[in-house]
């Protein structure tokens, strides 16, 4: 018995030492790292970046196209100075603070990781970012929109801002202003009611809209909410109808958004109300509803037209590639943002990476500085420029008019107003 | 001194009058048997006294004070302990625990004691344990020794009955109420228990009320026998008086065919 134990241990130790010796064999390279240190990519290894998106659960429709957008961008970008880029296994932010933190822990534990594309949800970023930031990494989100993560656009840091955070998605405040300006100035509506559904995103956007609308001189008659899972919207619509607003803005998701659109008819006080939704309802299963006809939708400007990323790809090329690879259309609108975020990160790495002694060195502080300098970089979503708090998006809000539930594609292109600061 | 005094108690369940204008009393130190055919209302009678049921009207006084409206645990705390006809032990608890838990209302350690194992707590636990072993020891070697830490469900039927009596004893009652204590026991065991019931009074000083079908037991232990039928007392007095009472014979024989 004793014998067998001994030899098994012997084997394990032998194997371990042999490998350790092999790993330590290369020469010590010359590279002076900055304050945050640097990542060394040895010859034959790959540059490590990660994708952290909501790829399971009820927000997977948002996270999966983001994740795939990142994968496609990495493919398109190709090598950086002769080194491959590896996204690793996609991580799941579970669209929650706890999930974001746990996943960020996994990322931060791996000192080879340079940067992260994610998260899908702002709540996850709130908890993930301190860890990512602490580890000296950068994170570029394709779909966080909470102002708290960057700034209030007036030069004040958001309460959840962390150094190293960037995003290609628009700030909610932009969309709120865009939608409010359109409603107040273009449509000439002066009273509006707002409904959110208790989701941090819809609540934030609803608030941004309400604030902007009032700042323009309009009146928010009711600011109220429903719950996810509610079906009977008559009570909330009755509450709203009591004040007879001219506009009803409900930037919420399906199916609750559908129930509101379906049940609004026949509620006293809402006979002539103009309905307006946001990007969360720009989905086929909502727009197929006959009741959604005549609605306005605010959202990021998806008219990418001939915009080309630095990789040379346009939205059309991307969609073709996406369809070819995954056999379906993207289920949410932020794929282009994910693509741009990835390209942005890879370009920045490309710019700061230094070759030395066969290894590639990426200085972490230099990478942040590089991203802070981004200005007028072409992307699928438009020209990208980062402000000092990491808002890098093209920041263009489009308002579309949905006229025909039978032709959703046409509606999506029917931009009636475009807001760009 | 009258320990338990029941006056004009009536209870009915949805039209069926289980106990009808019953009068009953137990003197300190007495052993009283309550007999009657199935469905005569005997167990309901027990439930009334121990607070598991509330009378529609009437009085129940224990030691001169009304106990109507008290919760069962309060009645136990006043000093009435009972067993159940269909043996209701705590099967997953050990034999020792079964008896220890019955001293709940005689003890007082709450949070700090157990948490910090204070001196007072340890003393109380020791006392509980001592009392428990004492009542278990009353039944000879059957329930002690290695048995103490066995769960109650491994016990044989007769031992379950014994443990139930021990558990009732452990509540330190003045009035002990036994619901068919020898049901399911063989003649030898019955004889043994008959003897023990006598000791419960003579050595432990309990006053005892028994519901029983086994007439030998009733004959051997009772000072007084009360016969219930349809919730009404049809006879009471000494065993000999009752056993020859025509109403009693009719109550038993007259319907025994249709019963059960």
């Amino acid at each position: 018995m004793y014998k067998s134990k001994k030899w098994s241990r012997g084997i394990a130790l032998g194997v371990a030492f042999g490998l350790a010796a092999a790993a330590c064999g290369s020469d010590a390279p010359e590279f002076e790292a900055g304050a945050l240190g640097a990542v060394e990519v040895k010859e034959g290894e790959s540059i490590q970046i990660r994708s952290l998106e909501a790829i399971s659960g009820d927000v997977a429709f948002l996270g999966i196209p983001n994740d795939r957008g990142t994968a496609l961008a990495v493919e398109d970008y190709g090598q950086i100075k002769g080194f491959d880029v590896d996204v690793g296994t996609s991580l799941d932010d579970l669209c929650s603070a706890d999930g974001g933190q746990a996943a960020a822990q996994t990322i931060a534990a791996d000192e080879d990781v340079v940067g992260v594309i994610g998260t899908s949800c702002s709540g996850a970023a709130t908890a993930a970012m301190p860890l990512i930031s602490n580890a000296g990494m950068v994170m570029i989100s394709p779909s966080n929109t909470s102002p708290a993560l960057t700034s209030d656009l007036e030069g004040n840091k958001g309460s959840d801002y962390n150094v190293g955070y960037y995003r290609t998605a628009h700030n909610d405040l932009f969309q709120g202003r865009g939608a409010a300006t359109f409603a107040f100035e273009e449509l000439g509506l002066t009273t509006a009611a707002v409904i959110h559904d208790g989701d941090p995103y819809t609540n934030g956007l609803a608030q941004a809209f309400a604030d902007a609308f009032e700042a323009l001189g309009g009146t928010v008659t009711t600011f109220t909410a429903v719950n996810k899972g509610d079906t009977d919207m008559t009570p909330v619509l009755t509450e709203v109808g009591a004040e007879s607003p001219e506009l009803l803005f409900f930037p919420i998701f399906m199916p609750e958004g559908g129930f509101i659109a379906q049940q609004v008819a026949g509620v006293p006080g809402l006979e002539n109300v103009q309905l307006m939704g946001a990007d969360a309802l720009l989905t086929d299963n909502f727009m197929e509803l006959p009741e959604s006809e005549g609605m306005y939708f605010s959202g990021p400007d998806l008219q990418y037209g001939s915009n080309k990323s630095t990789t040379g790809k346009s939205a059309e090329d991307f969609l073709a590639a996406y369809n070819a690879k995954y056999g379906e259309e993207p289920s949410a609108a932020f794929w282009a943002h994910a693509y741009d975020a990835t390209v942005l990160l890879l370009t920045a790495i490309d710019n700061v990476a230094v070759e030395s002694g066969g290894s590639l060195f990426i200085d972490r502080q230099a990478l942040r500085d590089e991203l802070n300098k981004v200005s007028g970089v072409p992307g699928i979503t438009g020209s990208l420029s980062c402000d000092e708090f990491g808002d890098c998006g093209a920041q263009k809000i489009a308002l579309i008019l949905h006229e025909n539930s039978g032709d959703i594609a046409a509606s999506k292109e029917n931009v009636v107003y475009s807001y760009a600061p | 001194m009258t320990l338990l005094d029941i006056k004009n108690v009536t209870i009915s369940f949805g039209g069926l009058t289980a106990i009808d204008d019953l009068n009953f009393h137990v003197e300190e130190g007495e052993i009283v048997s309550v007999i009657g055919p199935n469905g005569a209302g005997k167990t309901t009678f027990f439930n009334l006294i121990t607070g598991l049921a509330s009378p529609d009207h009437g009085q129940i006084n224990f030691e001169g004070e009304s106990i109507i409206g008290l919760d069962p645990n309060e009645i136990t705390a006043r000093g009435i302990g009972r067993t159940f006809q269909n043996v209701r032990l705590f099967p997953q608890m050990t034999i020792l625990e079964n008896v220890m838990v019955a001293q709940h209302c005689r003890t007082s350690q709450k949070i700090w004691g157990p948490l910090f194992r204070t001196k007072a707590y340890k003393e109380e636990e020791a006392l509980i344990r001592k009392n428990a072993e004492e009542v278990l020891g009353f039944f000879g070697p059957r329930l002690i020794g290695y048995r103490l830490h066995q769960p109650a469900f491994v016990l044989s039927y007769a031992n379950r009955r014994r443990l139930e009596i021990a558990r009732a004893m452990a509540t330190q009652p003045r009035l002990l109420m036994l619901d068919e204590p020898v049901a399911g026991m063989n003649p030898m065991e019955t004889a043994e228990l008959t003897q023990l019931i006598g000791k419960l009074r003579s050595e432990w000083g309990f006053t005892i009320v028994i519901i029983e079908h086994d007439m030998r037991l009733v004959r051997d232990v009772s000072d007084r026998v009360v016969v219930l039928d349809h919730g009404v007392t049809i006879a009471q007095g000494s065993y000999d008086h009752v056993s020859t009472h025509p109403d009693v014979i009719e109550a038993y024989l007259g319907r025994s065919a249709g019963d059960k």
Partner: protein
Amino acid sequence: MTATQRKPQKVWKTNNWVDLFLTAIRIGAMAFIGVGLLAFVLEQAGGEGLTGGAIRGLFVTGISQGAMYGLIALGYSMVYGVLGFINFAHGEVFMAGAMSGWITSTILFENGMWEGEAKFVLALLIVLVIAVIVSTLATILIERVAYRPLRESPRLIPLITSIGVSFFMQNAVLGLFGPASKTLPAPPPWMSAEYTFLRIEGTKILVLVIAAVSMAGLWVFVERTKTGKAMRAVAEDKEIAALMGIDVNRTIVTTFAVGGAMAGVAGVLWGLLFRGVSALTGFLPGIKAFTAAVIGGVGNLGGSMAGGLLLGLVESVAPLVILKPLGIPAVSQLKDAVAFAVLVLILLFKPTGLFGERLAAEDRA
């Protein structure tokens, strides 16, 4: 240690403070409701409140939603009456009906059965029949697999099992049919027109009529048929029923099946009314329906239906009539909280529900 030597050493104090506390809660709740109502009345008198049309609308939706709660509640109530446990998975049986409604109605719609009046009625019947079959089969399967082996266990065991079944079914359907919410085809335009002097939408009238007919059918079944009598006997006392020659097992299955059928009907009505179903459709309505059954008195069929209507109504009306006048914002968010609060209050005031329970003797304790 002898009893005569000592008086009881220590007597636990009575539960006075618990009772006192409960009384305080009761009074507090009544006061809260009272103040809310008063504020509402003042608001109405001041002319700032809701219009008559708005209030009528709230009542009509409340009642149609409540009718569905009632139909689902029947299943809970019957099973509770017979077996004495909450069949938590009953909400999922309802969901199964609703999902099958989505599939059949979409197929029928694609084949043009959703247009003319006669065709639509026929299509609706087909959808109903299929949903009833699906729900009934689902509930029978659940009973066979998960509950029958536990017939003799303590009551909490099947309850926990049913929670497991509920989660399993929810997520199985989620996996099978995907997470997106499914939209049912819109009923023909004449269904959404308003009828009668109350100006009720056609769909809602249809929902109420079907609910009423199902309820009546169930009543006839339970009160007038032999099987129904057997069910009542089993509910009263299983052993005696068995002695009377009733096949207890079969009767229990029938009870589940009938409850499932009602849930299936409710599922279709749900689809008609809200036109949206998903794997999670069953959960909340299921809990609400059980709440309704408790409110009305479990085991009491009329009571369950009434409890459902009441709950639907309260849910729809109370946020605007009690909470909003108190100055609470976004009251619709608190709709579910109101429903559960109603449950707690009803149980505090009437632990056996408004109309009394009808349970087997052993379950009453």
